[in-house]
């Protein structure tokens, strides 16, 4: 998706691509509307904007589950979805208004490094 390189979201997407060049897809998403603020995909089959919309629902469901547990002091920091050969990571900003969505191949990417990259860049979105 074309994005402005001057916006914070655009800069974050570029920064993540620089740190994880083998990534499959990345997007910065508005957590309320599910719309991408900036995104990039290295794979023709993965549309990060579609994924962003669905993953927003995943986050909302989890937040509902947390209210059912009365976890008022807990915030979601990240969600890591392990698939057969891919890992999908969702990293929320501190105020929970946006999240970064990252898709990597589990075969060539160290998950701890990917998580750390997201942690570094999410601070630029606040």
């Amino acid at each position, binding site marked *: 998706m074309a994005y402005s390189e001057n916006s914070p979201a655009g800069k974050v997407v570029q920064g993540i691509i620089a740190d994880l060049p083998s990534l499959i897809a990345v997007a910065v998403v508005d957590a309320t509307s599910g719309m991408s603020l900036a995104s990039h995909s290295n794979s023709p089959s993965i549309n990060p904007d579609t994924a962003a919309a669905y993953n927003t629902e995943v986050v909302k469901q989890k937040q509902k589950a947390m209210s059912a547990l009365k976890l008022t002091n807990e915030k*979601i920091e990240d969600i890591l979805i392990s698939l057969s050969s891919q890992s999908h990571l969702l990293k929320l900003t501190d105020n929970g208004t946006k999240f970064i969505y990252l898709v990597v191949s589990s075969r060539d990417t160290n998950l701890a490094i990917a998580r750390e990259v997201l942690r570094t860049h999410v601070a630029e979105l606040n």
Partner: protein
Amino acid sequence: MKLDFLQRLPFGAGRATHRIVPVGAAGPELTAAEAMLQRVLTDLPEVLVAAVVQLASGQALATYATAREFNLPKVCEHNAEVIRQTQQALKALQLPEEQIEDVLITLSGQLHLLRLLPSGRQLLYVVVDSHDTNLALARAVMQACAGG
């Protein structure tokens, strides 16, 4: 001898805590679910919540909780929905070969782990305090107990 006063004491009444509670109908699935929760408890004794949940209905087969305030039926329903939403996302992305193995949610002070069981019809849900364990360990325990 009738001991009614025991019913009025706090530990006598209400939902049980600190023990595995069967929820589903008796049968091999329930027995397997209880056995799985027992394995989780053995490996992660400090676990806060654990449940085996049916993916399609969101209903628990067996649960374990350390506090009575947890609205376990609602929690199980929402977590099943988290997995279902993720599966929908994968379908929309046209990734048919990818199967969900697990979902790890890091909160400020807790870790919530969801693991799909080999049958694909149930999930194991575990909540631990991050002070008691780490993500890699909890994930490894889930993998071992779920038999995947």
